[in-house]
């Protein structure tokens, strides 16, 4: 199934062509280079940027995949969650294309895209995960752990009560004077620091049943710690970055560990998607945690699949429809859904 997929959920304009789970092209346009983001979000600018660049990005995705719209089987688009005015641009564009070329249009949940992004790959088929599997989405907007009964059927096991993990890392970087969003910078600087320098409190350590995440308390503790440590030196910044990152991940790991050791069924795969899935330290900590349980960590095969992108949307659209007799396409009724939840859309 060849799919043209589009995602305009926040400040990246993204288009991709996928064939089943194989990524043929994955084009992302942002105001940033691949290494850095320039500036915060301006909704009107974001909208204008999406409008200005969407045609270019779609064209580029098609030419990179050596493909034209008439030869795709279906079109997929992100309907939420995200920034309402940004979502609208992608939806309107795909509606227009679907009508013009008489193609079915599939609505995809952005978080489900992140969740299934580890299953996208450069080859045509890979080993499917065994269900039930575990899924984790860690990004700037989401921190959610789910049980995947099968593709399309998810049970939330834990989600954040306040800040998302990516947001917490970004804000910690900001408190250290490293700009915003600075999660990736925090990771780089943490490499030069000692994570045991500062004993920050692991969030919700008292929870007997671990079914939630929280990062606001840790953020506050960090704020107080930085105030105490001022004036900051280069080495202090490195150590603070390392300590914060370590505790933020420790909390994530404790919840996952609790869940795994309390399952009455066997889990063989943990799928991890979202921007923070890029973090090398998090990956190695997860691998170490999963090893004794015989669980395989599955992360996206490239960095581009971690950030907001459209190849994950095409992949999710395919996986959700590959066994269906009829495509779950409702071209006319598709509308943006800024607050869309993962387990409520089925």
């Amino acid at each position: 199934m060849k799919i043209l997929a589009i995602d305009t959920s926040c400040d990246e304009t993204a288009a991709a062509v996928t064939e089943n789970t194989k990524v043929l092209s994955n084009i992302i346009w942002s105001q940033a280079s691949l290494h850095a983001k320039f500036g915060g979000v301006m909704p009107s600018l974001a909208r204008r940027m999406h409008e200005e660049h969407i045609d270019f990005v779609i064209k580029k995705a098609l030419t990179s995949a050596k493909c034209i719209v008439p030869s795709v089987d279906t079109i997929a688009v992100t309907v939420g969650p995200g920034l309402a005015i940004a979502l609208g641009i992608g939806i309107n564009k795909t509606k227009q294309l679907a009508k013009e070329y008489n193609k079915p249009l599939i609505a995809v949940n952005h978080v489900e895209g992140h969740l299934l992004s580890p299953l996208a790959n450069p080859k045509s088929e890979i080993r499917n995960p065994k269900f039930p599997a575990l899924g984790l989405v860690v990004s700037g907007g989401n921190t959610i752990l789910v049980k995947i009964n099968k593709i399309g059927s998810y049970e939330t096991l834990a989600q954040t009560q306040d800040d998302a993990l990516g947001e917490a890392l970004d804000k910690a970087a900001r408190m250290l004077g490293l700009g915003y969003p600075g999660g990736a910078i925090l990771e780089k600087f943490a490499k030069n620091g000692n994570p045991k320098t500062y004993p920050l409190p692991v969030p919700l350590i008292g929870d007997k049943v671990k079914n939630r995440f929280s990062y606001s308390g840790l953020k506050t503790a960090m704020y107080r710690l930085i105030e105490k440590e001022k004036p900051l030196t280069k080495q202090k910044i490195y150590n603070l970055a390392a300590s914060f990152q370590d505790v933020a991940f420790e909390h994530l790991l404790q919840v996952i560990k609790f869940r795994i050791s309390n399952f009455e069924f066997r889990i063989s795969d943990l799928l991890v998607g979202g921007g923070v899935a890029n973090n090398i330290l998090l990956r190695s900590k997860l691998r170490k945690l999963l090893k004794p349980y015989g669980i395989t960590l599955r992360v996206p095969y490239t960095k581009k699949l971690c950030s907001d992108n459209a190849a994950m949307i095409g992949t999710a659209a395919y996986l959700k429809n590959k066994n269906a007799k009829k495509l779950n396409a409702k071209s006319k009724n598709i509308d943006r859904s800024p607050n869309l939840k993962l387990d409520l859309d089925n």
Partner: protein
Amino acid sequence: MKVIKENKKAIKEAVKVLTGGGLAVFPTETVYGIGADATNPKAIKKLNQYKQRPFGKPYSIAVADQEMAEEYVNLNQTAKNLYKQFLPGPVTIISTGKHRVAPGVESETGTLGIRIPAYPLVIDIVKTLKKPITATSANASYQKRPYKISDILNSVSDKNKGLIDLVIDAGDLPRNEPSTVIDTTFDDLIVLRQGDIKLKSKNEILSRSEENTQNIAKELFQKYEEYLGKRPIIFALVGEMGSGKTQFTKGLGKVLGIKEEIVSPTFNLVLEYKKLIHIDTWRLQNPKELETLRFLKMLENKNMVIAIEWAEKVADLIKNCRDQAVIIWVKIVYGKKENERLVSWNII
């Protein structure tokens, strides 16, 4: 294309090429860079051609020191701190530009990245040239990071090789990561307007926990609930990061009977619930952007409660809604003890 070894003569050669609007490949403490006179539009055009840049991608520039940097960008306190701690070194610091470089060097929004490489050769070239040079990696966009000259030459077409006027070869460079890019422009925008939000001291409660903060929100809501239906209620929340603005909004959610978890709207900017709209202006670059989020439309629903975090950033806009909405300013400040917060409020 002329290839020379890294030595004293190299500086003179490079300056000659750059003055003439040419492109020079040079070593840095990260990867090989390609330099053009950042103030010469012709040179930048040539560089664009070489890099095969997609549109809208700016270049960072290398300068000799902070003083030279300030000729091209405005440095805020965050930037100054970072310069002191990390420069010279493998860090690019983005500030708002002064538009003194050739078109296409600054970003579309007028920001500019500055590098002060910890590599004497580059500093000497810039000092002799007396102008900044572009500090972009010497590969074409999306190609391999160049740690040796052959990395570059193998990845560009013969036509593009012809665009390079000079190569300064320092052999194999250590495999260091590209520079870390830090954007400081964001900090310019948080303009605290203390004058607008001075609160009377009598409306003040000490919160000792997150639950306390939530309960204060509930009580405050109940105090002004009678207005609902006649006018929407805006809770304009002011307080440092981590002070509990989202906790306060959680309290509003509870009293309004919202079952969904109220989470931070920092990423989405707006989260809408049945009777509550939760806005975070922190990431907004311009207060006017709130209108784009259909803020005025939100006020048409007279039964709506609107909580706005970092409300001081949009103080003027909120004040202008005085006739349409009940506006309650709530300020939360850190107390002496770990969990203590001083919550004060006022209707303005």
